[in-house]
């Protein structure tokens, strides 16, 4: 694992996501910035995917259950070469294929259409079960939100995954502690995740979702697990853009020109610090 390289990629993902939301003057920057490190690790260190063959049968699958953070996924897929990075500027525009939420029919590299919260883990379970039925070796990864976990279906899926022994499935619970109406602990406390998932028959690990060593350890543990695996990733919503960090106001609003420039500068500077 080349952490410097992964940091640089995560930074590019953040810049791409911010640019997409800025170009659209619409979208969800906070959560997108928060999951950039996990996406960088999955797509550039772990997953077997081929941008030239996005529908490759035995590819590893990824489901972005918190589909509103599509800017981060699109920036990752563009960085990986599934489509031109330039297209990120068309995000949410009326003639663009880059829909507000992931659309598997029209976006190369998107494995499942998501956006309506709580549905993605169920779909990931289906993919994992299908792999078991056909004795495939591919793995299924998903990212869901902590706020999203208030949806009851997430727990129906958690039950399903352990009942069918889907140890080829691992999810990242993106715990940034914030949702639209405020702190998750104030709106409807979904914690504690590790105890909940263990009670549902999963193995778990709590990590810092911005630390590549910890992400690496969790992914390795997930791959060795005899049960489905929940990685409880503590993250910072808005990570990398100074004025967005830990601010739920930046859940679903776009930066204006000046703010965008500050944000891009923050990200450039972060990279300079990293590479020193």
């Amino acid at each position, binding site marked *: 694992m080349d952490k410097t390289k992964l940091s640089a990629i995560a930074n590019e993902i953040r810049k791409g996501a911010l640019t997409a939301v800025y170009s659209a003057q619409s979208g969800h920057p906070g959560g997108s910035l928060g999951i950039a490190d996990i996406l960088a690790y999955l797509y550039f260190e772990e997953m077997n995917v081929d941008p030239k063959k996005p529908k490759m049968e035995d590819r590893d699958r990824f489901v972005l259950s918190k589909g509103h953070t599509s800017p981060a996924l699109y920036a990752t897929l563009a960085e990986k070469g599934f489509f031109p990075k330039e297209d990120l500027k068309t995000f949410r525009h009326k003639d663009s294929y880059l829909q507000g939420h992931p*659309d598997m029919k029209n976006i190369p590299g998107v494995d499942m259409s998501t956006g309506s919260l709580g549905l993605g883990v169920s779909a990931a379970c289906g993919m994992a079960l299908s792999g078991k039925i056909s004795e495939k070796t591919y793995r299924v990864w998903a990212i869901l939100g902590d706020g999203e976990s208030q949806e009851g279906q997430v727990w129906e899926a958690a039950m399903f995954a352990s009942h069918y022994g889907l140890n080829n499935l691992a999810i990242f619970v993106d715990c940034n502690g914030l949702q639209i109406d405020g702190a998750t602990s104030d709106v409807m406390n979904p914690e504690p995740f590790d105890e909940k998932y263990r009670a549902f028959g999963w193995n778990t690990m709590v990590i810092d979702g911005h630390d590549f060593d910890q992400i690496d350890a969790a992914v390795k543990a997930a791959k060795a697990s005899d049960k489905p695996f929940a990685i409880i990733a503590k993250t910072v919503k808005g990570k990398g853009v100074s004025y967005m960090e830990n601010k739920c106001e930046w859940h679903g609003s776009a930066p204006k020109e000046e703010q965008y420039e500050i944000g891009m500068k923050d990200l450039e500077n972060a990279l300079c610090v990293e590479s020193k």
Partner: protein
Amino acid sequence: MSEKIATRDGYGKALAELGEKYDFVVLDADLAAATKTGVFKKAFPNRFFDCGIAEGNMMGVAAGIASTGKTVFASSFAMFAAGRAFEQVRNIIGYPHLNVKIGATHAGITVGEDGATHQCNEDIALMRTIPGMVILNPADAVEAKACVEAALKHNGPVYLRFGRLAVPVIYDEGHTVEIGKGSVICEGTDVTIIATGLMVSIALEANEILKAEGISARIVNMPCIKPIDAELIKECAEKTGLIVTCEEHNIIGGMGSAVAEVVCESKPVPVVRVGVNDTYGKSGKAQDLIPVFGLDAVSVANRVKEALKLK
């Protein structure tokens, strides 16, 4: 009277029989004994997965399986498949146009004793509004198998509607269903009765009453409600100048609405919709409930006679 079999039995048997010829997976939500997917489970235990009482998750799981290239049947009662899980069906099956076949049994008031909470008269309306969704509603157990096979041959989401009550078998083995097509069962000149599901055999019974009174009715079976056979409907409007639709579903948004939409936009003639008249169901034996909701042959014949005054 011919043999009576519920279309849900036709569904279960069809899955088990077609399981040899086609490769597909079946999911259920703790109702396999009632939806009859249990028949498939017995024949192909490795291709059957119970999802427990969690229909929303089942639809998501079905979508995930379908995304890997497999065909999936997801079964529950119509109330839970189309009602409870509507948003899941719309967003994670319909929107990505995945190859999921929703086998919804216990549709309509003929669920019987369980009453209003389980009698789904809204599912056709709900499913019709999902772009790309095909809706099949067989008239008997033979046609149920034909619908399952048509669904298997179709690439994309299909909603299959089955009933709990045993109904007369009107078709011979080998009968086929084509998506987008209805069929004329018998010719007539005064009125067309377009029926779907168990109302087809009741319409045929009503036709005997009408014949005895000198009324010539064209009887059409409409097993495919979406896409609807607009050509056939237009032809009926032209040939008979009056259409009466019969369905075990709310008259709002169902097959009758679909027919009226076609007629209004192409060949306006009177359309009278016989169905559940925008009310909830109630408990009772299925056979006893049919006349309560005005869906028996005598009631249908009377509605046709009234409708003739509109010509």
